[in-house]
């Protein structure tokens, strides 16, 4: 946090290397969010660059009342969703239609056959890549940088209870999809 503030102040004084440090530090997180929202590497990278340019242009307006990462991820979230809207990608979330299980079953006739061929992490990545943008960004924010639900509310503008419900349903959905694989891997916990 203090390091971020130092880098921001140095950037505002015209030190471009300080900004480069900020980019190097957060590029993976920003790119992961844009990639999971947009699903395409080139678009995600372009959007991540747009995010950092926006941040650079508006750094003076960051009031340092919240964490820099909260502000950065809010810019990332909005920019990625705007891009998804422009490209006409379906961005509605898990609560926005009646279909509870929205994940497409792309694993073939018997999900378990395909699942067994890959490890759980790869399956999880594939499942996340099929989530709708808002849902994918929620899971990413919650797990990747271990953001609290309160911080996620500040980033996304959603209410705390809404986020809790969405996270619960999303994870239940992932659990259902990966049920067999999970069953095989819980022996050490029982």
């Amino acid at each position, binding site marked *: 946090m203090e390091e971020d503030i130092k880098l921001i102040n140095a950037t505002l004084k*015209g030190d*471009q290397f300080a*900004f*480069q440090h900020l*980019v*190097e530090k957060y*590029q*993976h*997180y920003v*790119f*992961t969010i844009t*990639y*999971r929202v947009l699903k395409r590497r080139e678009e*995600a*990278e372009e959007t*991540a*660059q747009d995010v*950092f*340019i926006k941040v*650079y*242009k508006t750094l003076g307006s960051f009031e340092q009342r919240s964490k820099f990462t909260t502000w950065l991820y809010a810019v990332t979230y909005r920019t990625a969703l705007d891009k998804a809207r422009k490209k006409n990608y379906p961005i509605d979330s898990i609560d926005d239609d009646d279909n509870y299980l929205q994940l497409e079953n792309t694993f073939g006739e018997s999900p378990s056959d395909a699942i067994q061929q890959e490890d*759980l*992490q790869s399956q*999880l*990545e594939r499942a*996340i890549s099929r989530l709708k943008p808002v849902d994918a960004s929620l*899971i990413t924010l919650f*797990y*990747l940088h*271990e953001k609290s*639900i309160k911080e996620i509310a500040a980033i996304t503008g959603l209410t705390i209870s809404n986020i*809790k419900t969405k*996270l*619960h349903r999303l*994870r*239940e959905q*992932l*659990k259902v999809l*990966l*049920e067999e694989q*999970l*069953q095989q*891997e*819980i022996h050490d*916990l*029982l």
Partner: protein
Amino acid sequence: MKQIETQQLWDFIDGQCTAEEAATLKSALETDPNVKAEWAKRFKLHQQLSELPAEQPSMRFVQNLMDKLPLLYRKLSIAPLVKPFWVKTALGFLALLLVGYIGFVFFYIEQFGVNGQFTYLESMKNYLNQAPAKFLILFAAISISLSCLFVLDRFLKARFQKESQASSS
């Protein structure tokens, strides 16, 4: 399991439940193998989600971004360091000083200079001859500096506008 129970399990895993709820769940985990199995699946999923690596952008991501910044940076630095209000105030003050100075000279000549022997112009020359050299040099230096700064400001603004037009097109 009912939805409320799965929500409780997730709250327990996320560390979001109260001490009382946590105690109830711990006791259920110890006594009920079904609850434990359901918890274990969710906990494993939670672990796996936590361990998912971040996506990697291309190797040139930072370089590509930084290459875009110099031009952007110059655009940003156009913003005046001093607010326009203070610039206008300073200019107004200088103008007031100049008017006051000229007024004072004319008042001086009117009072003491023109006595029939000298014309206005000669009186002015006499007055300037009497003025201390240091004061005249200082006045000239300030005037020249301000003029140079004004010309430089106009030149740089024109150049930045030209560059930003070129980059946007």
